[in-house]
Structure formats: structure tokens, C-alpha cells
């Protein structure tokens, strides 16, 4: 898995490529921690290039979202592929973490 970080005025976007799974937890955690250290108020996790998220990956997303909420910050998910969206929907993730199809909408969500 590879994660590239982009900084926008309204937050940080993590472009994730590969599978978000138990085996790749460390890479994702490190990228999130780095963003957190910068005082990021809105973390947008771009899953457009992620084919598969397993149960450990889902747990990690929820955990990260909860920890950002405690800091009055927000996590959003961007462009999940259909299978990933299906897995997330089954676990009711959209009720915990907002999901967006367009980057502009995700960025605007926190600004609003």
C-alpha cells in the first residue's frame, strides 16, 4: 500500500493506493499520525485506488474518525470503489464517517 499526502487549505488529503487491510495497518496509521501532528482539522481519505478494505481496515477507519472527533476534527472518505462502498454500507460506516464522491464536496463539508 502507498499513501501520498496532499495539503489543501481546508485539510489534508491522503491518496491511498492498494488494499487497506490488517497487513497494511502500520502504513496507514503512520500517515494518519503524521497528518494529526500537523494539527489537521479535516482528514480526507481518498479510497479511489483502493480495491479492498477488510474488517481490520474498517476498524482502523472508525478508530481514526473517533480520535479526530475527540480533537473537534473530522475524517471524511472520498470516492470508495463499489465493493468497498458495499462493505462500508453493511457496517453502517456512512453514519459515522461522511462519504463523498467529489473532492470539492469533501473539502467544502468541513468549511461549511
Amino acid at each position, binding site marked *: 500500500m502507498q499513501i501520498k499526502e496532499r495539503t489543501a487549505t481546508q485539510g489534508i488529503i491522503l491518496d491511498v493506493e492498494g488494499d487497506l487491510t490488517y497487513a497494511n495497518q502500520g502504513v496507514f496509521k503512520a500517515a494518519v499520525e503524521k497528518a494529526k501532528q500537523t494539527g489537521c482539522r479535516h482528514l480526507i481519505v481518498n479510497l479511489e485506488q483502493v480495491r479492498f478494505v477488510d474488517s*481490520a481496515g474498517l476498524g482502523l477507519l472508525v*478508530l481514526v474518525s473517533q480520535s479526530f472527533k475527540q480533537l473537534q476534527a473530522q475524517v471524511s472518505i472520498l470516492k470508495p470503489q463499489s465493493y468497498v462502498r458495499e462493505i462500508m454500507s*453493511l457496517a*453502517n460506516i456512512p453514519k459515522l464517517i461522511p462519504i463523498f464522491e467529489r473532492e470539492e464536496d469533501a473539502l467544502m463539508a468541513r468549511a461549511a
Partner: protein
Amino acid sequence: MNSNAMQPTGQAADLSVQPALVATILLVEDEPVTRASMAARLTRLGYRVLEAENGRVGLDVARRERPDLLVVDWMMPEMDGPTFCEAVRRDPLLKSSQLLLMTAHDQPAQIAEGLVRGADDFLSKSASKQEITARVLAGLRTSRLVRELETTGDELKSSMLLLEKKQAETEADLQTAATFVQSLLPPQGSPVHGIALAWEYQPSLTLGGDLFGVMAIDEDHLGLYILDASGHGVAAALRSASLMTFLRGENILQLLGSYDPEKVLFEANRRFPLSADGDYFTLWVGQLHLPTGSLTYASAGHPGALLSSAQSPSRWLTRSSFPLGFDPSARFTNDRLGLKSADRLFLFSDGIYEVPSPSGELWGRDRFQGVIDAEKQTSLSATIAACFSKARGWQQAHHFPDDAAVVGIELTGGPKGTFNG
């Protein structure tokens, strides 16, 4: 053996207070005057010198004393220098020794032959004191490095042996734990009259984190569940065993008064929060009313169950819901439907269909469902076996990346002719 053979000459006794610092050199030379002369020169340089008057004696001394450097004459009766070098290289105890071959000649062809036959360096009998010092020091430096490597190698080998022993103990412990966990799984066959049960379970590691139960709650109700722990390994397995204990029929009846799925999930959600590492469970719970075939079920983020009927395509029994621990105040909702005779209910973990092909494409829920539908004419256990076989064929590997379980229940006919069919 010649009396010279084992007697160190020179100042060995004086230097014995610092034995580790005094290098030992074995001098193998048949000609007494040359041997005495060279021994004296080496002794003056501060080394402990052992002497042997021929190759055979030299090998005996070398095996016993493990000298740091062997200085060997080329020309000797019985066993010449190169033959001695070959014998040393063949000897398991001596093969890494440093060998300095003494010669009166320094023809390139002779040097090449000596090197090929096992010598490390050459020393001319007419060499100056400086050259002898330099070549002996070089030989000893290499010898020290080789011995350090051997010591490190020995330490590594013993560490490896220790690790292997520990690993074997851990594996045995895990196997014992796995056997115990497997013993908690329901026996295949007929848990209650009118119900057939078959299952197949392939943990990704020795100890799995996906577990299931099928049990009589009372004479009219059958309780069913399948749980899936996020993550892998011993920690996940222990958490699963803990949830499994909670889900035992008598425990739930004592706590809640019934095996009502939504109440079971509500209570489990309260007791099993998201861990600090993001670990959690998904759980599907069902209760079958045996006299009528009425199934009540609820899910906490679990991919669900599949109902397979003889007359119609299979259907998923699930709805979107939080896994356990995602929301402490989450409520879960029961769904109900009626089962008929010959209907089959499959509980499964997502590990059965979330298997990638070599190109990375997942087998997926649809293909899994396709096998359930295609195999409905075969026996329950054959249908389950086909799911595993197709999944393995898709990923082209026997072992699954995640725990894989499929549990099948078939209504074979009610105790009093119930189950409308």
C-alpha cells in the same frame, strides 16, 4: 611422537599470564636445523611456538591445540606441505585454519599449486625478519577474523536452535488452544430433531478468530450465531473465545431471559466495545422456532446469512448495522421469515469469499452465492465443500488469507410434521 612435537618453545610460560593475547603457531618442518631456526625467530617475535617434525604429527598437534596459524614446509618426506594442506582442509575441526606454506622456491606455478591445494599464503625460507613478521601478522589477522566468524556462527546456530525450540513450544500451545476452541464448535449431524447441521472451518492461522454456534435453547428454539473478529492471531482468537462464552445459550437465558437476537446484540454491543487498537466483532444471531420454522435474526455489521430454498434463488439475510462497539448506544433490529422443510440456511464468514485471484480480483459474494444455488441438489456437506473448493480454485491456494467458515443448516422435517413444505 617426537618430544619436540608437543613442547612449546620460547617464552610461552612467561606469557601464560595473558594467554588470550599470545597467538600460537604450529611449525611443521622435517629438517631440524631449519625448524629450530624458524622456531627461534617466531619465538623472538613473541609467539608461542609448537613444533612437529612431519605432517602426520603436525595434524595430531593441530587437532589437539587448535593453533592460530600453521607454518608448514613444502618439502617433507611421507606427507609434503601441499598434501598436509589438503588434509587440513578435509578435516572438519581444522578446515578453517590459516596455512602458511614455506618454500625455498617462489615459482608462480608452484605458488598456484600450493594455493589450489589449500595454502593461504607463502613464506620464503630466506625471508627477512620484516617479511616473516608481516606474513605471520597477516595470517593471524585472518585467523582471528575467521574465529570470530565461527564464534558468531556458533552463537547464531545456538540462538536459532533455541528459537526453533521456543517456536515448537508455542506451536504446540497454539495447537492445544486450537483443539480446545474446535471442541467448542457444535458437533455436525443433528443438533435437534428435524435439523441437519454441517460445517467447514479453515482458520488462516492455527488459532482462528471466526467462531459459530448452533444450540438448542429450549425444546422449541434453536439458537444460531456466527461471529467474526477483526484482525488475526492469538489476540483475536482470545477475544472471540470470550464472546463465544458470552453467547452460550444458558448464559444468554440467564442474562436476558430469551435468545432474542436484537437483545443479544444490544447486550454484546454494550460488553464488547471497540478496542484501543480498533479491534471489534461483527455478529449475526438467529433464533429458529422449531414447531413453526419461524426464524428471527439480527446482525451487527455482519455480512449476513443466505437462505437457500428449493424453489427460488437464495437470498441474503442481513441489513446495514453497526458492528459491535462502533456505537455504544446502537440498537439492532430483528427481521423475521418463515422457513420450510428442505430450506437451507448458511452462515458464513467473509473470509470464504474475500479471496483474491492471483491478479487481485476478489471471488466475491455473488460467486459464493452462485455456488450455493448451483449446488442445492447436492448434500449439505457437499455444497459447503464446493464453496471451499471453488474459493481455493479461485485463489489457486489451499490456505485462506482470512478465517473461512461456512455453516449449513437444513430443515429435514419437524418433530410433529411441522415445517410447511
